[in-house]
């Protein structure tokens, strides 16, 4: 238990900064929602004048994209990008920082198995991420309720925000594995930004070019808001792949961490 408490204590300030940043980021965009709804309704009138509905004009059932949840999903993808960086950096941090601050041998000489240390560290990170998600999503829900002109389905909202949790857990697990495999890693935030941006831009480009192959390599596709908006469900195969990879990363991280060579100072 001590390791868990210690980890949470150490991350307290960083966690607070991330939560404030993320909620401000989410909140900042909400006041634009009425303007968006205005644009949409004038577009609808224009199309109705020509005897068309939005769906006919664009081809796919895009009606859903132009409601409050459509707007929210657009903004939320940005929040997920930032929150993904947080999760990946946290995963790197809980393993890599012991080496950097030369406290690894202090920790490992305690009468505790490495598995127990690893599990407590992982749990501490998971708690921090859950707190982040709860607060960010609550602020999103309240501000969306406040600014949305039309009503929206709460169930779909919850389904949408669950992508944040899956995404964070995936990148967190990836971060842990990377840190376990790269014992000399020093900078956590730079690596986290690099990897997460890579995934994100890959996802954007995959969408624009319609290249199916790219989709398999980016978690932003595994847990995708657009797909949920249309189908009101996850794409089962991508979801399964994403969750399976998360578990594999965590287990592989444990295996590596148990056997790795830690230098004394």
């Amino acid at each position: 238990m001590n390791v868990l408490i210690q980890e949470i204590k150490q991350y307290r300030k960083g966690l607070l900064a991330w939560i404030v940043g993320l909620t401000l980021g989410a909140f900042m965009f909400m006041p634009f929602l009425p303007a968006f709804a205005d644009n949409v309704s004038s577009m609808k009138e224009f199309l109705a004048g020509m005897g068309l509905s939005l769906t006919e004009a664009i081809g796919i059932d895009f009606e859903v994209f132009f409601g409050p949840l459509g707007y929210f999903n657009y903004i939320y993808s940005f929040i997920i990008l930032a929150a993904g960086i947080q999760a990946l950096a946290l995963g790197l941090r809980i393993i890599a920082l012991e080496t950097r601050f030369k406290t690894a041998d202090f920790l490992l000489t305690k009468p505790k198995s490495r598995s127990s240390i690893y599990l407590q560290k992982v749990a501490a990170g998971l708690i921090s991420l859950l707190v982040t998600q709860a607060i960010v999503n609550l602020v999103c829900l309240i501000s969306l309720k406040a600014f949305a002109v039309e009503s929206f389905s709460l169930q779909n909202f919850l389904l949408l925000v669950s992508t944040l949790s899956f995404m964070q857990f995936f990148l967190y697990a990836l971060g842990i594995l990377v840190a376990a495999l790269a014992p000399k890693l020093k900078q956590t935030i730079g690596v986290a930004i690099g990897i997460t941006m890579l995934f994100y831009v890959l996802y954007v480009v995959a969408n624009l070019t319609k290249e199916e192959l790219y989709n398999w390599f980016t978690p932003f596709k595994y847990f995708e808001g657009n797909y949920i908006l249309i189908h009101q469900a996850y794409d089962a195969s991508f979801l399964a792949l994403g969750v399976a990879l998360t578990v594999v990363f965590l287990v592989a991280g444990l295996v590596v961490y148990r056997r790795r060579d830690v230098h004394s100072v």
Partner: protein
Amino acid sequence: MFAIFKREMRAHVKSLFFWAVGIFFLIFISFIKFESIATTPEASDAMVDMMPQIIQVMFGMAMPLYTPQGYFIMILLWIGLAVFLHAALLGASLISKEQQDKTADFLLVRPLRREKIVLAKALAGIAQVVMLNAVIWLAVQVSLLPALTGSSTVSAVIETGALALGSTIDLEQGIYLALAGLLLTQVIYLVLGMLGATASRSPRHTAAYAAIFVLLGYLLYSVVAASGEVDFLGVLTPFWYFFSQRVLTDGLSAAYLGLSAVIVIVGIYAACALYRRRDVV
């Protein structure tokens, strides 16, 4: 001094390698398929059109994406965000890692003035951002430029894009100038990262401050680009100096070239001065 330069290059070779591979890969996959975007103007463009101006600008989608100009502006905004973060973090870590890794006293007892240490580190940093920029340049060479000469559909959308921008310069030349502007902005962020690290008291937090600084610059750029009326505020954010949309329209702005030179020179000078008086523990 050369020994420090060499050491810094070697210390960052791995991270530079990963950044270079990542950025190259991204640019390559972004542009290699450009023709498929140009031939089927995206259906979700309608979604982008409905967004308020500020959000379009933030996502780099203020121009139609099926034109090479619009697409290049969007990709370069994302790439820019990544490489500016790289530059600022590199600058911060060049200075603060000595204290963090407890190698500062080892370095400072060498028979070398502190100014020269900072200068050697700055040169190593500049060499690295130049290399990263060269990789971007190379990636654009092998992916975007061939795509532009491909078909008649593409040359038609080049015209559309040029009209939408009202550009006065040739597209290919504009792309080279935009990449040069990107390099200058990288150097500015590198120097600002170093300056921040020499000014800050706690070496543990310099990386976070550098990242926050870049993000604030990005937010301010969005406000300036979206409103279109407060261009003078652009002076405060290096994102704006050589923003690719402006470069593709009019080329590099002479005033901002001058300003960048001033920032880099004064920044390095100030970093030397601050480091000389710094209490290194």
